[in-house]
């Protein structure tokens, strides 16, 4: 079918009108003679239109007795017709050829320069450098020696560990990777300092100058072991050069650390309870605007609202959707609560303990818990106060760039 259509297009087709008394006979005669007719439409008793291949039209004319049928060409289609039309429009052909030529010529220049992979190196510096080497927008592509430019970039910028210069069409792409060199802060000598305040229970200095002993109480941020110069640089007796190395401090430092929290619970109190009534509204986010599609918690005297984002797809499975926020409001009411002293005490301890344990880092062993309970007020107005302390033993030694005398530990 497609082949037939392609053949018809390349050989050209004619739309013809045929008039006659017995058009069925015309159709049969054509088909008997191997002429394929397409889009045959009858317009009344004596007229039909159809499409026929240009090559078949002469055959058709010879076939038809002129006294019985009259044919007339009403349209021409296909490749030969198009070519004939184009041939008659020389300026169009010239324009087309000029456009193709211009496109080919313009594509031999570099019109875009892209630098990727640079983080610390400023892009402007790279652009300025390649410009100083004559590589700029508008340069002919064959004038660029990519290998040479790669070498020059690597020499000019020592921070570059790898660079590739590629020409992709009219784009000059400079992809590079930078060396992972330590920052001035990172290259400083390192002390061991206390991350938290506590009582030292285990102290094993492995390197550096120890400044504390077991049993000492330390404050957060206090230097526990100081970094040390490796050579005689400190006293200058060994004639060491400026490149004297520094030994970073290392130590095992375990300390008792305390975490405290307090809570208070009244014997006569009120608490917020959800009634179970819920109202949901949405906010629509369009062009940076947030448009509420209803009033959250409308009709509720008191409510607690929660928000979650949701995307409404324009149709199932579509990748296009509207960003919305679903606002769910729960109606709340205040209810009186009456507790006994023991209940209030238990609740206060529980609350304070939970708060204190939340402060303890994960994986740290708790060695002791102490609750101090006091009651203020009398009768129903009494309030139970709890101070809760959690004691842990943990490693508090952390490394920090030495803040000491910089003349002793010069930056490498």
């Amino acid at each position, binding site marked *: 079918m497609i082949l037939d259509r392609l053949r018809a297009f390349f050989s050209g087709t004619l739309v013809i009108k045929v008039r006659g008394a017995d058009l*069925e006979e015309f159709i049969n005669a054509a*088909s*008997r003679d191997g002429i394929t007719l*397409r889009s*045959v439409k009858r317009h009344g008793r004596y007229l039909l239109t159809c499409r026929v291949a240009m090559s078949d039209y002469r055959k058709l004319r010879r076939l038809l007795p002129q006294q019985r049928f009259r044919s007339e060409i009403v349209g021409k289609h296909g490749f030969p017709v198009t070519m004939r039309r184009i041939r008659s429009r020389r300026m169009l052909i010239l324009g087309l050829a000029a456009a193709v030529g211009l496109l080919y010529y313009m594509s031999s220049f570099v019109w875009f320069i892209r630098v990727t992979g640079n983080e610390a190196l400023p892009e402007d510096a790279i652009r300025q450098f390649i410009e100083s080497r004559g590589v700029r927008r508008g340069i002919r592509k064959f004038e660029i020696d990519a290998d040479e430019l790669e070498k020059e970039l690597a020499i000019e910028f020592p921070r570059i560990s790898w660079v590739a210069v590629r020409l992709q069409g009219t784009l000059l792409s400079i992809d590079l990777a930078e060396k992972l060199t330590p920052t001035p802060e990172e290259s400083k000598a390192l002390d061991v300092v206390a991350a938290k305040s506590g009582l030292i229970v285990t102290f094993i200095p492995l390197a550096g100058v120890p400044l504390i002993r077991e049993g000492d109480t330390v404050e957060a941020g206090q230097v526990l072991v100081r970094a040390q110069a490796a050579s005689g640089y400190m006293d200058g007796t060994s004639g060491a050069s400026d490149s004297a190395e520094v030994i970073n401090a290392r130590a095992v430092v375990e300390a008792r650390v305390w975490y405290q929290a307090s809570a208070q619970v009244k014997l006569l109190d009120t608490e917020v309870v959800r009634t179970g009534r819920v109202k949901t509204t949405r906010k629509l986010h369009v062009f940076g605007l947030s448009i509420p599609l209803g009033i959250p918690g409308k009709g509720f005297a008191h409510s607690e609202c929660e928000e979650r984002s949701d995307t409404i797809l324009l149709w199932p499975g579509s990748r296009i959707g509207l960003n919305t926020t679903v606002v769910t409001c729960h109606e709340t009411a205040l209810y009186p609560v009456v507790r006994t002293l023991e209940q209030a005490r238990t609740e206060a301890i529980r609350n304070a303990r939970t708060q204190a344990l939340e402060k303890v880092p994960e994986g740290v062993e708790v060695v002791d818990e102490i609750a101090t309970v006091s009651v203020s007020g009398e009768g129903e107005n009494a309030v139970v106060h709890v101070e809760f302390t959690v004691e842990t033993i943990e490693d508090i030694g952390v490394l920090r760039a030495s803040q000491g005398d910089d003349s002793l530990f010069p930056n490498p």
Partner: protein
Amino acid sequence: MSTRRVRGVRSSLAETLDIPREVVVDLPKLTMVGRFEVTLENHKGIVEFHPTIVRLRTSAGALAVTGSSLTLSELSSSKVTIRGVIDSAQYSATGRGQ
């Protein structure tokens, strides 16, 4: 051997050898696509052609395709494709073939 007998032998042979019968016995083959296209292979000519009816001659008798806006989308010596809104395709009672 009479024509009918020859046709019967051919038909049996085609069935035995699993060959399309319309090829061996020259029977019309009618293919209908929805209500908008009918293709008839092995036709013997057009008897009548109007936008509401196309009557075709086949070895099995005259076949009338009725409907509206009927056109002959493609017409060759052995195959005709009719397009339009098709209501029915019916063989006439007279001139029954196979």
